[in-house]
């Protein structure tokens, strides 16, 4: 039988089907019309039409964060691609596996300053794990295969495939490779056995141990292994913003989040421990602050990460272990379990006594008697009303930190936020990706009135797809996080941080076809949330909580300071 030849567009669609893609988030345009035409002819996957390409990428990204699968976005050339860049950089900074397909002008037009031409591969190079320009339809299928493989393996990340329009027209036989090998790309998964032995010994010798987990625990699906090892040892554990849910937050061994807005107990234990086990975390500036200050206290560090370049980048470590975090932790736990050595219980007891002393300062307390709605209170009520079982996406600012501090995540992949890039505008499109992945789940988007306006147009997509997201707007009328820095570090000169002329969010929600509510009194918070998740379960509800405009996020370590230099309430 003569092999039938398919167009590049059809090949692309077949590749996506072969990868088991369920949703493609995108926006059409000239360069991708052939692709759209093929998408139109099939129903193996669904295309979600967003209202701005940035949102397509965020939605694909969040779909990936919530499910662990590779998210897919599709944009046209030129402005479509440049609009996607913020989304790509967001995913890159948080190591999210994603494939972004961009249209490109036809190959003969490349370099001619053609209509809607930009050097997409050049523009995105610094913010992708890898990217490709497909110049020959014969390379298309193998390139898509590579893109998914690279995105999902090793330290994950976004991969962009730029496809010129003529390539989507050209014909060739379709053969999707079953697997792919690349001599230049071989991630290490199995940790070095000698180093693992040293780690075991070091962990058991600890007098003041500490376990510090990051986003790598979530990405590496190592939550069970972290939990088991921590409980086996009875050691204190903390998490970065990106690792929340990797260890159940309500558990007493959990000291809360660490870092710039971390708890006293987490930051102090981090600073004063003698053996630190770092798992899938990268000692970044928002976590340990100033590395010189961090290094003042002597401690031995074991660092497990799938990316060798994350190890000893900001902080020199004693036992580097490159490998899959789940596998390595499992091996460490196995060796401890089968060995005879046990942690030094009396030292551990003294260490916990010290930690409890720090914990007793109750650094997350806030004024519960206030007549104004306190933002922390809204998050606590959200936690209660949803039984801790919601997917929570957030934007960037104070509301993000309060969500991280007060919603006690006890499962991985429930807390979806832009940690590395800190992208305002992430929350709502992210909630779309999550809600599509889990149509029956409760999905809340915690946001600020600044952030929500950065991608508010997506309320329209939400209506089209009937996504019953609950928008939890903590409306303080300020770019709150900016205001907080101005209050602390710029003698209260509030330059451009007050947002005047806010829209009537209730009317706005209604205009988009959704339910809107404004809540102004503390006693109305819980009933409003109950209505949103109860009576209006199947609708998108936009809850405009008018909160205390002057509330700050505590504790706070000023930028460039050390972990023990916190500003407290």
């Amino acid at each position: 039988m003569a092999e039938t030849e398919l167009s590049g567009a059809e090949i692309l669609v077949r590749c996506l089907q072969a990868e088991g893609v369920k949703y493609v988030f995108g926006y059409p345009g000239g360069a991708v019309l052939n692709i759209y035409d093929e998408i139109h002819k099939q129903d193996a996957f669904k295309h979600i039409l967003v209202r701005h390409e940035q949102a397509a990428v965020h939605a694909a990204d969040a779909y990936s964060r919530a499910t662990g699968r590779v998210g897919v976005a599709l944009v046209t050339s030129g402005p479509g691609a440049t609009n996607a860049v913020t989304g790509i950089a967001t995913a890159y900074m948080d190591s999210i596996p994603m494939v972004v397909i961009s249209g490109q002008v036809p190959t003969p037009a490349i370099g001619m300053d053609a209509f809607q031409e930009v050097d997409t591969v050049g523009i995105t190079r610094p913010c992708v794990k890898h990217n490709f320009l497909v110049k020959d339809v014969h390379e298309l299928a193998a390139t898509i295969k590579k893109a998914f493989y690279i995105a999902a393996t090793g330290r994950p990340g976004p991969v962009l495939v730029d496809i010129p329009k003529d390539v989507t027209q050209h014909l060739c036989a379709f053969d999707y490779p079953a697997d792919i090998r690349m001599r230049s790309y071989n991630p290490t998964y199995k940790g070095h056995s000698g180093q693992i032995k040293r780690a075991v010994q070091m962990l058991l010798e600890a007098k003041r141990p500490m376990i510090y987990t990051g986003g790598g625990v979530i990405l590496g699906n190592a939550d069970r292994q972290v939990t088991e090892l921590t409980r086996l040892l009875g050691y204190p554990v903390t998490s970065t913003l990106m690792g929340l849910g990797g260890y159940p937050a309500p558990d007493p061994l959990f000291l809360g989040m660490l870092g710039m807005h971390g708890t006293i107990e987490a930051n102090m234990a981090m600073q004063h421990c003698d053996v630190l086990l770092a798992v899938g975390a990268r000692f970044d500036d928002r976590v340990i602050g100033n590395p010189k200050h961090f290094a003042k206290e002597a401690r031995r560090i074991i660092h497990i990460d799938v990316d060798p370049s994350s190890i000893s980048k900001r902080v020199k470590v004693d036992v580097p272990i490159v490998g899959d975090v789940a596998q390595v932790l499992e091996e460490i736990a196995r060796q401890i379990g089968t060995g005879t050595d046990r942690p030094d219980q009396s030292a551990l007891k003294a260490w916990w006594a010290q930690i409890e002393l720090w914990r007793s300062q109750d650094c997350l307390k806030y004024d519960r008697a206030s007549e104004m709605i306190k933002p922390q209170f809204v998050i606590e009520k959200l936690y209660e009303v949803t039984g801790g079982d919601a997917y929570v996406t957030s934007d960037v600012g104070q509301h993000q930190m309060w969500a991280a501090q007060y919603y006690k995540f006890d499962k991985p992949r429930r807390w979806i936020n832009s940690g590395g890039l800190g992208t305002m505008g992430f929350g709502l499109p992210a909630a779309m990706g999550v809600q599509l992945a889990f149509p029956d789940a409760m999905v809340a988007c915690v946001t600020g009135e600044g952030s929500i306006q950065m991608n508010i147009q997506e309320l329209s997509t939400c209506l089209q797809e009937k996504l019953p997201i609950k928008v939890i707007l903590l409306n303080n009328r300020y770019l709150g996080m900016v205001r907080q820095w101005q209050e602390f570090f710029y003698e209260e000169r509030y330059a451009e941080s007050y947002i005047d002329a806010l829209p009537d969010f209730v009317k706005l929600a209604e205009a988009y076809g959704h339910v809107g509510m404004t809540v102004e009194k503390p006693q109305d918070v819980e009933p409003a949330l109950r209505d949103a998740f109860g009576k209006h379960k199947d609708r998108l509800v936009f809850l405009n909580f008018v909160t205390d405009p002057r509330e700050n996020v505590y504790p706070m370590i000023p930028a460039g300071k050390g972990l023990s230099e916190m500003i407290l309430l």
Partner: protein
Amino acid sequence: MRHIISLLMENEAGALSRVAGLFSARGYNIESLTVAPTEDVTLSRMTIVTRGSNDVVEQITKQLNKLVDVVKVQDLTDGGHIERELMLVKVRAFGEYREEMKRMTDIFRGRVIDVTDKTYTIELTGDGQKLNAFLAALEPDAILETVRTGASGIGRGERVMKI
């Protein structure tokens, strides 16, 4: 400290810009960079000369390894190695200069590869210091133009970088 890093990478469009982009994005300095295909035309061999503390250079090699197109990375400075650089120098070669230039070229074991009434073009290979020494030995006024390739490096003895 000065480090000389060798890498093998896929001979693909854009691979060079990934390496160059990495250095600029992370603020690493490049003293020189040379690249050309190897006997296996699907591979390019690159030599990068950089400066930095050991920690920085360790990061550089890790980051280079992380690039998807890079097949192998070696810090040649870690062991015995040889490096060579090619320089072409166009000098004034009339009057008193003519004899002097020929003599200096011989002393440094260079070759005159192009001649006019007024100029010589001299080819010289060696490590960077030798090339610097040659330039320093010439009358500054006599130098019309220089072009250097940057260092290429290879391990000493049986040390081999191959895939």
